[in-house]
């Protein structure tokens, strides 16, 4: 199904307690034991899919960026890091 994918991440300079807690859990668990400590940070954002029942146009992508920046993310604390489409 055609879709646009908008990816949103917490701003780099701000805290991401959810990411931090996942990282701590990973380290505690000793996940991927050998190199657990190689993961220096975990950050958790959103992947938002907008589904269409038709092909996606350039205009859709532009609109998605607009929606992404004005509504799907909060520019004070988040960034839209990627917008892509799959047909």
């Amino acid at each position, binding site marked *: 199904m055609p879709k646009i994918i908008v990816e949103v991440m*917490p*701003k780099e*300079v*701000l*805290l*991401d*307690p*959810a990411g931090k*807690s996942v990282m701590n859990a990973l380290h505690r668990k000793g996940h991927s034991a050998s190199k657990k400590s190689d993961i220096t940070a975990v950050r958790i954002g959103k992947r938002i899919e907008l589904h269409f029942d038709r092909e996606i146009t350039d205009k859709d992508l532009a609109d998605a960026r607009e929606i992404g920046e004005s*509504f*799907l993310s*909060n520019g*004070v*604390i988040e960034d839209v890091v990627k917008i892509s489409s799959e047909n």
Partner: protein
Amino acid sequence: MKIGVVTFPGTLDDRDAARAVRLAGGEAVSLWHADTNLHKVDAVVLPGGFSYGDYLRCGAIAAQAPVMESIIKAANGGLPVLGICNGFQVLVESHLLPGGLIRNEHQHFICRDQKLIVESNTTAWTNEFELNQEITIPLKNGEGGYIATDETLKRLEGEGLITFRYKEVNPNGSMNDIAGLRNERGNVVGLMPHPEHAVEPGFGPDTTVAMRSGVDGLKFFTSVINSLVNA
């Protein structure tokens, strides 16, 4: 004195906020999210809850509701607006107050009787408090961690816009222990704890005098009525 209490789908504490308004001697007027009409109210409370499920970001969808267009306009014109918990999140998402609110640091919802320090008593909603007064107000939220850039924090501290700070326990990892903020003008105040749950003896937080007898929250509502009377 007519104080509007907004109901969004998913708002939970609207009836509590209306009760608080009445106990403070005001008249509570119910405002509906889909209606831009503010019914000539003298002040507005954005109560707590999970507007629209708070699914995208807390308060984000509510901030786009028709009633908010009117409230933002009126707030910029000086209408007293109090945002409680989800209401605070709506104010932040509406850019009436700076910064953002994210998931609590410990990742859990938390409900507790919270001590606060009142750091500004020159707002419409806090003028009956003493400066630096310690009050106890119930707090209950999952996404109450206040964050802002260093620059914003510096400005908030410098301009005295931090209105409430957590005392003893920072329950959600808020930066600089911030529990609540005001705008420059002092008509818009937002905070995570719930003053409307500390207005009636028997149903508020515990105090050293008696179980559930804390009524520190009532002053928010008498403050605004007071400031309107004296305006």
